[in-house]
């Protein structure tokens, strides 16, 4: 279970990355986090290709925390790829973004995002959100059974 990645954090901004990891660590999720720094890397990881060719589809992450503004392939494209592929579409995706752009929210929900969170400016609020999210996704929510991944 130790080797299983439970959270895929897709974030390009080092500050955001640091703060997200800080918040996750505070709640003891640090060991099960994999960080992807752009959309391409995130997709490689999820689809077990290129640098992650050795990975198996048998162990999908329990949640993907996805930023929208990403180099190479942006967040919405990543979301579309995840949700359009039967091998990955069961993976819960939580969009975490600074933007409150309605357009993005609408598009995100149309593509099948599971949650959409705007990062609040108040860091205390952010930490609370991360805590609740981790608790919910990793402790409360039942992960999809393997059959969901065909």
């Amino acid at each position, binding site marked *: 279970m130790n080797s299983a990645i439970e959270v895929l954090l897709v974030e390009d901004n080092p*500050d*955001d990355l640091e703060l997200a990891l800080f918040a996750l660590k505070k709640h003891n999720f640090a060991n099960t986090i994999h960080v992807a720094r752009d959309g391409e890397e995130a997709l490689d990881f999820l689809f077990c290709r290129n640098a992650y060719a050795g990975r198996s589809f048998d162990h999908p992450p329990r949640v993907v925390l996805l930023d929208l503004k990403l180099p190479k392939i942006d967040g919405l494209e990543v979301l579309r790829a995840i949700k359009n592929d039967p091998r990955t579409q069961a993976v819960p995706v939580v969009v975490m973004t600074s933007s409150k752009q309605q357009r993005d929210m609408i598009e995100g929900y149309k593509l099948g995002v599971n949650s959409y969170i705007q990062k609040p400016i108040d*860091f205390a609020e952010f930490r609370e959100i991360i805590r609740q999210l981790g608790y919910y996704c990793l402790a409360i929510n039942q992960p999809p059974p393997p059959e969901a991944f065909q």
Partner: protein
Amino acid sequence: MLTSSVALILTSAAFIGYELISLRKTSLQNGEALAQVIAATSSAALRFDDETFGTEMLSKLAIDPTIVMASLYDNDGKILGRYPAERPAADFPKIRGAEGHAFKGGAVRIFVPVKEKGEHLGTLFLKMDLETMFERLRLYAGITCIVLLSCFLVALAVSNWLQRSISGPVLELAETAKTVSLKKDYLVRARKYGSDELGLLTDAFNHMLTQIHERDVALTESETRMRAVLNSAVSAVVVIDCAGLIIDWNSRAEQIFGWPRREAVGRSLGETIIPSRYRERHQRGLNHFLATGEGPILNRLIDITALRRDGTEFPVELSISPMKTGNVTTFCGFITDITERKQAAQALSLLAAIVESSDDAIIGKDLSGTIVSWNAGAERMFGYTAAEAIGKKSAILIPPDRLKEESIALAHIQEGRLTHFESARVRKDGKSLHVSVTMSPIKNAEGKIIGVSASSRDISDRIRAEEEIRALNLRLEERVLQRTAELEATNRELEAFTYSVSHDLRAPLRHIDAFAQILADELNAGMTAQGRKYIERIRHGVQNMGQLVDDLLNLSRVGRMEVRHRTIKLNAIVDVVLAEMKPEAGARQIKWVLGELPSAVCDPGLVKQVFTNLISNAVKYTRPREQAVIEIGKQTEEGATAIFVRDNGVGFNMKYADKLFGVFHRLHRAEDFEGTGVGLATVQRIIHLHEGRIWAEAELDKGATFYFTLRGISST
């Protein structure tokens, strides 16, 4: 009869008178002669004074029975003889020296002197009885009477007969003639009594009556026919005598002039139908004709103005002919009301003038396409004169490739349809032009199509203008496309900008806040109170900045978003806003006065922002008040329903009212009242999106009222 009787009587009387006189004369002569004879023989008795002799001499008078008495006197009056001798002397007159004779009492007394050798011896007196004479006279009278009576009877008989056979019929003839003349009854006939001259006369008379009757009937028929003809004449027929007085007047004249015949006849024509200003001329013309027998207006048609009974004037056509019957001249006038003709002529000439003055080419063609009329516009447009064009085929104007249009149009015309099309034409000088042609059928009185009227308008300028417009439009469209593309690009840039603003401006704020917090946590023990305060200031600034970014993004979104209208009760929106607002208001004492608000057709989300903004402002600016009063209601402003939000807060100076709705304009200091200066600008933008109006009234330290209208609020 009477005459003849009188004549007879007079004749008889004369005859008897004459007989009387001649008898008297004869008797006297006889008596005197007898007396002379006796006297001559009696002289002896006187000389000798012998009475016996005297009486003897006188006795010889007995031969004449008419002598009733005789006596002989001497110069002394002594009777010397008596006859009859037996009559006493006293019966004899006593005379002396008497001479001559005297008629007395049916007898004549004759006194004759008895002379011898001139010596007067005495006087002989004879009384001669005239009875015999009267006897004769009576006989004569009797005979005369008988003759008279006979004559009278005969005359009576003759007269009767005459009367029966002559006078009767003549009188009857006279009576008949009288009847005829009185009753004008020519059917009466005189009775015929025989075949004599009177019979012939009666026949002749009756024949004459028959002829008169026939003439009369013919005359009456002719008169009736003539009256009928006159009365059915389209023209008014007026006959006047040489004094200018109307003597006949037909029914058309009655209609035209308004005078019934019985009133018109006898009136002066001049005063009846001639306007006063022409009367003198009319009278002069009449006098001139009567004097010279000629007149300029006789026997020809003239147009003049006539007068109706009601005083209106109208144009007439008049012809006057003098008619001479015997020595009497009358004038017959035929008068036609030509009002309609004049109007028609005017309309026609107007029409002709319009056609002639039209800028359009107006061409008449027959059905074979031969030009029959050509106006000035056609001459100007096509360069052919009327003389050149008329008689030619209209094909001379049509470019060969357009001839088909013409035959199609002609086919339409023959179906009686009006056609309108645009085409090209060739001028005489070979230049071509664009025309708009309207062709309509020309029909004759029976409605048969006999030709075409083609009206062409030179639209070369228009076509050129249209081409220019088309070209301009094309250019415009290109430019619009270009501008649209530019605008879209700008919009995309703006989108990208706001996207990055919302994303990239917020991220550093989050980082600053987060690291400041982490720092504070890390330095927890070693942080001074002052340091902690600075950290708080950093975080506060970050919060403000975040709010500003959010507000600006909202403002820009409001400007670009599509408004989605639906009908909603404004009270419902206010209730939601108040529910959200109340926790914020916290423990403050706020008295809410909520009025009944109307429904509105609006975008509820946007209008909710308006209420949120205005109400939160009211809450904010009443903060210094122990008891805040916030009133939300409606009132009528310039016929429109305005919604207001009123507070008893700090208010503002009205001289800054125009700055109220500008972005980043604030009327309060940040340390007094927080805010970004974007809220009211957003509110104004939303109100404008709803075609409404927003304004504020305030007084410093007394409070402020914000009003707004929305097009979607029906006025009450």
